Every structure is written in C-alpha cells, then in structure tokens.
C-alpha cells in the first residue's frame, strides 16, 4: 500500500491507479462513494424513466425509451461491477439497501408522469449525467472506471438526442403540447441546476478533486450544463430562467431566480419569491422525495419475491 505522499505524487503525475494495492484506505473510501453515487443514479433512472416511457406516443418512441432504460441499467452495472472488484457485494448494494440510503440526485424522486416529462429528463438530466461522467471520463485517476466510461459517453449522446429531438418537435407543434413542454421545463430546469450540489463558495474542500476522481468543481460543471441547455432551449423557443453575461471577458451563465429556493415536490412547483438556505436543501435531499420508496421497490421487490418462491420450491 502506498503512503499518502506516494499516492499524492502518483495522482499529480497523471498516472492511473489500477488496483486496490495502489490505493490508500482514504482513496478507496472516496472512490467507492463516488462509484455508489454514479451507480445509484444510473440505476434509479431506469424505473423513473420506465413509468413515463409507458406513455410513449408511438411504438418507435417506446422502443427508443426502452433502449435508453436498457443503457442506463448497463451503465449502473459498470459502476457496481467495479465496486464488486473493490470488495463490495453488488447484490447487497442493489437489493438490500434501505431506499433512503440510495445516493442518487433528488430529481429522480419527483415522478415523471408523461412522455413530455421523460424527454425533458433526457434533455436535462442526461445532460447533467453527460457533464458529470464526461468530466470523470476525462480526468479520473482510477483506470478501470475511466476506460469503462468510453462506451457510456457514446450512449449518453443517444439519450440526449432523444430529449432534444422530441423537445424541438413538441415545441414546434405549439398549442397545448407546447404548454405542457414549458410546464415540464419550468419545474425540471431548477431541479437540474440543483443536481450539481453546493456552490463552490460553500464547498472549499473537495476530496474528489484532490484525488482526481473528477476534474471540475460543482460550479464549473453547472456552468457547463447551462452553456449547453440554455442556448438549445432558446433556439427551440422554450423559456428558461437563465441568461448569459460577460464577466472579465468570459461568458458566464446567470440564473434569473434566487438559488436555492423553495420547491413544492407534490405540485412540481418552484417559488422564486422564496429563497432558502442550502441547509434546507440538504434537509430536503436527506428526506428524499415523493417517489423514493416506490422507485427502489420497483427493482427490489421482485428480487425478494423470487428468492422466497425459489427457496420454497427447492
């Protein structure tokens, strides 16, 4: 096992770490934590997307939705498989954890009820995933994960395309279809902005950055997301509460509402008149959202039912 200084030297030199033998216990802990967040996020997107994919407006659209869900499960598998190689029990991680202990973004606890909301999720949430994973793919110091993400990035492009193509199509259709799209964007945009976590001013120290498990800060990732989503929405005629400014010769994306602010998850409504503290956001995240139990039960229940039946038969 290397000393902390040796590990630090290895990370700084840009070398890749290939096995637990080359890690300190602290690095291993942080790597596992980061992988769990990634695996849980990919996994929970499957039931969340499935509930909405069932409302696809055509067979072709349904096949695309189902293919995306299949990709997400495969992406989750990459993270859990690496965790298993690092000594965790994949089966326990997926099937025996309490729903509240899953570490995915709060956004997935708010149900996607329509095809429109699903395609906005593909346009917004998958873009968030693309930024986060793209950064890890680019910078991660752990070789097996970095290489595992090669294919993931290509597939995420397909999800984004589904989101963007449909958002454009629905916006162009006008009328009530476009109103429904705008309503979905209104609640899903701020949730995606929140996805990237605490602002850099409040998060002075990041072990993930120190270990080069990722390369960009929360605010840098958030800016990257805004720089892709805001211009696209403007181009297709969808309103979003953000705009571009130039500061010190650099483009910066500014939000047009207090960040963070109050969210009513049951009614999918933000109150831009009601700024809140990050402590209140963290408390909401810890409590989880309206569909946390249901989403997790969708993949845990049948596993345990099958186990029970199988046990009786044998």
């Amino acid at each position, binding site marked *: 096992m290397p000393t902390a200084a040796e590990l630090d030297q290895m990370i700084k030199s840009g070398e890749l770490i290939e096995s637990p033998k080359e890690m300190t216990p602290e690095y291993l802990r942080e790597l596992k934590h980061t992988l769990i967040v990634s695996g849980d996020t990919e996994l929970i997107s499957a039931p969340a997307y499935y509930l909405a994919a069932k409302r696809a407006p*055509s067979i*072709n*659209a349904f*096949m*695309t939705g*189902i*293919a*995306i869900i299949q990709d997400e499960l495969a992406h989750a598998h990459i993270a859990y498989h690496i965790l298993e190689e690092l000594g965790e029990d994949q089966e326990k991680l997926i099937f025996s954890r309490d729903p509240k202990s899953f570490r995915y973004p709060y956004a997935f606890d708010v149900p996607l009820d329509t095809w429109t909301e699903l395609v906005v999720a593909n346009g917004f949430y998958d873009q968030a995933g693309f930024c986060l994973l793209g950064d890890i793919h680019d910078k991660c110091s752990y070789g097996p994960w970095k290489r595992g993400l*090669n294919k993931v990035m290509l597939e995420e492009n*397909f999800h984004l*395309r*589904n989101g963007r*193509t449909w958002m454009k199509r629905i916006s162009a259709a006008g009328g009530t279809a476009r109103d429904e799209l705008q309503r979905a964007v209104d609640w899903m945009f701020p949730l995606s902005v929140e996805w990237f976590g605490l602002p850099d001013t409040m998060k002075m120290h990041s072990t993930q950055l120190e270990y080069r498990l990722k390369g960009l800060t929360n605010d840098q990732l958030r800016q990257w997301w805004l720089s892709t989503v805001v211009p696209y929405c403007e181009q297709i005629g969808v309103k979003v509460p953000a705009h571009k400014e130039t500061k010190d010769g650099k483009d910066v994306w500014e939000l047009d509402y207090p960040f963070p602010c109050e969210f009513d998850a049951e009614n999918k409504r933000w109150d831009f008149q009601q700024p809140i503290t990050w402590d209140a956001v963290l408390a909401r995240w810890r409590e989880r959202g309206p569909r946390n139990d249901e989403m997790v039960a969708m993949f845990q229940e049948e596993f345990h039912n099958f186990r029970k039946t199988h046990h009786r038969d044998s």
Partner: protein
Amino acid sequence: MPINLVDLGVIYDIRQGDDGMVEVDLTFTAMGCPASDFILEDVRERLMREPGVNEVRVNVVWDPPWTSARMTEQGREALEEWGLAV
C-alpha cells in the same frame, strides 16, 4: 455511429419522380431498432434540402433482411475504427 446509411447498407433503393417526389426503400439492422425514429426523420430532413425535392416518402422494408454483409468496405472500416467488430 460514425457511418452513413448507405455504407451501412440499409438503403435499398431511391427513386425520383418528375413531380419532386423522392421515394426511399430503407431497412433497419434490427426490427426493434431504437434509433428508427431518428433515422426516418434524418432521411426526410436531408432529402428535403436537395433542390427540386418537395416530398419524401420512406418505405421501411424487411425483405431482404439486413446482414452485416450489406456494409460497404468503407462502412466496415469506419465501424472497426470506432471499436465494433464487424
């Protein structure tokens, strides 16, 4: 994927009428192709950009079925470079 539909071997026929209508016979590599919607839209959108084209009809056909033998040499090389064994 970094390959065009012609090199992939899924375009079976293209016919142009005098009235600005273009008809395309096209297949997919699998009946459950998740990208079918995008492909149909791309074909329509691209052909409509050609001068003199004012209508595009795409017929999805399954006979003869597509196999990888229908790919051109360029198509095969592009996919191999991308990391797919063909």
